[in-house]
């Protein structure tokens, strides 16, 4: 067993242990959605989700889903949060995530932070977090791996793509935050500055192709989000801006030079809750750039764009239905991919994706939820690279996908 395989083996054992712990704690916790220690000063929460995915057209999404039902989408997590005194909190979460060809469920620290509240009154709250913090981006990014907080089995891929997820994971640094309240309206801001974690094979492959051996390494990042919202959750509006930089770490006899990767984006988010109806829309545009990779790979800066519109209907306390239209363009000046096709001889439909989704959620209990959704997709713009890298099975332009998910939390 070589080093990597040994690591994989240990990861699998740890993943199984985490899964067993989560199921055990869920069973032991009873109906309460937390485990409390030290008279409530310490809270322990966790989640476990498993999906089943089937698709057609040679188009694999999170595992070999076009050949068989893929179960390679598992999310497990356990977190602890403690109130140390009036102003200081600490929190940490460990996670195991398997998603498709790359992720094999390695246990990792998702966040581990200290949170100092400097000011906390009815009208103003200011504070500073430090350590490993989640990236505050859009409505869903900071809890993107927790199925209970997502509007579907997977998030809209135009805004929260699986294939570059390393860019939106977490970073090591500082995160100032604030809340200003005036009547029913709250203005929230959150920023994160530091070193992102980009060492993910799928993310590297998305930028450089599936055959590269090296990996990206996070350099520095600055992300900020301001949100204006109704304190009664009737509406919210947000603007997020992100700048993320990484360096390429070469491996062995790598034909590529040690270049740099950069992602810059602006995101607008809006939500309106008119019980039992709920409408959400987000729109992103930005640049994905690579440079200094040597003569075989000229410097590029691609202007991408994505947006979705979703309508959800809550039928009683347990059922929720939604319809979503999600659209993505790899290059907003080449929306039909014709320029890409001419330049590379690749199919033009890899440059975009239009995804129509119908989904349903059923809450069996506050702690257990089931989801099902059907995607009808045109284009392969956000299909993961590594799931679809086998020669001879070219992903098709028109394809469908059925996803089921069960999720447990406490």
């Amino acid at each position, binding site marked *: 067993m070589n080093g990597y395989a040994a690591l994989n083996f240990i990861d699998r054992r740890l993943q199984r242990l985490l899964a067993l712990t989560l199921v055990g704690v869920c069973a032991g916790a009873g109906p309460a959605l937390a485990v409390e220690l030290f008279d409530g000063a310490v809270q322990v929460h966790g989640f476990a989700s498993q999906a089943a995915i089937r698709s057609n057209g040679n188009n694999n999404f999170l595992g070999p889903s076009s050949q068989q039902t893929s179960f390679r989408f598992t999310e497990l997590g356990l977190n602890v949060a403690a109130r140390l005194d009036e102003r200081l909190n600490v929190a940490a*979460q460990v996670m195991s995530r398997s998603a498709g060809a790359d992720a094999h469920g390695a246990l990792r620290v998702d966040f581990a932070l200290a949170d100092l509240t400097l000011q906390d009154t009815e009208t103003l709250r200011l504070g500073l977090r430090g350590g490993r913090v989640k990236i505050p981006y859009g409505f869903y990014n900071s809890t993107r791996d927790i199925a209970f907080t997502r509007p579907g089995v997977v998030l809209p891929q135009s805004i929260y793509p699986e294939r570059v997820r390393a860019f939106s994971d977490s970073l090591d640094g500082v995160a100032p935050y604030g809340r200003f309240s005036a009547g029913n309206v709250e203005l929230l801001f959150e920023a994160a500055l530091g070193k992102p974690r980009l060492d993910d094979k799928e993310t590297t492959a998305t930028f450089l192709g599936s055959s590269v051996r090296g990996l990206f390494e996070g350099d520095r990042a600055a992300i900020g989000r301001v949100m204006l919202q109704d304190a009664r959750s009737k509406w919210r509006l947000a603007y997020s801006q992100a700048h993320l930089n990484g360096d390429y770490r070469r491996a062995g006899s790598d034909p590529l030079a040690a270049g740099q990767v950069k992602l810059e984006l602006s995101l607008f988010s809006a939500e309106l809750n008119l019980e039992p109806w709920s409408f959400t829309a987000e729109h992103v545009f930005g640049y994905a750039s690579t440079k200094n990779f040597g003569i075989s790979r000229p410097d590029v800066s691609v202007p991408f764009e994505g947006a979705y519109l979703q309508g959800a209907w809550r039928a009683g306390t347990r059922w929720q239905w939604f319809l979503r239209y999600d659209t993505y363009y790899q290059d907003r000046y080449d929306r039909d991919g014709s320029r890409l096709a001419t330049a590379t001889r690749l199919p033009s439909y890899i440059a975009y994706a239009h995804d129509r989704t119908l989904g349903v959620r059923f809450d069996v209990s506050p702690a257990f939820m089931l989801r099902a959704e059907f995607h009808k997709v045109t284009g392969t713009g956000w299909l993961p690279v590594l799931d679809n890298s086998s020669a001879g099975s070219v992903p098709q332009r028109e394809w469908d996908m059925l996803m089921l998910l069960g999720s447990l939390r406490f």
Partner: protein
Amino acid sequence: MRALDLSHWRHFCLAAIVFAATSFSACAQNVVAIVAASTPQGTLTRNALRTAFSMRLNKWPDGNRMTVYVLPDYDPIHAAFCKEVLDVYPHQLRLVWDRLVFSGTGQAPREVESEDEMIAKIAVTPGAIGYVKRNKLDERVRSLELY
């Protein structure tokens, strides 16, 4: 001619009035925010109360730490408190808490199983806040004045 005996009717009318009175109090706004009877904190604005139950305000105006207690999500008293006092839906409040808990940016309120447990916890926890039906109030807790 024998006088009409109205004594049954008197009883019936009395019973009807009592019934009407109790059912009226049952549908009026009768879930109230509570604090310990001994606590110095007596008032909050409705907005501050909502921010506190959204776990985005963790301190009393006097600087003491706030500890928030709630009943389970599907409890009708929880639903009544959310809708009538806070003007939010229980599922939205749960989503607000989940976003805090699973991003490391806050804690969820502490959950109790019954109004009796709620009162017992609030009576002995400094800075505690919760809610019960008005007719559950006893000498250990008092209703929080909202302005």
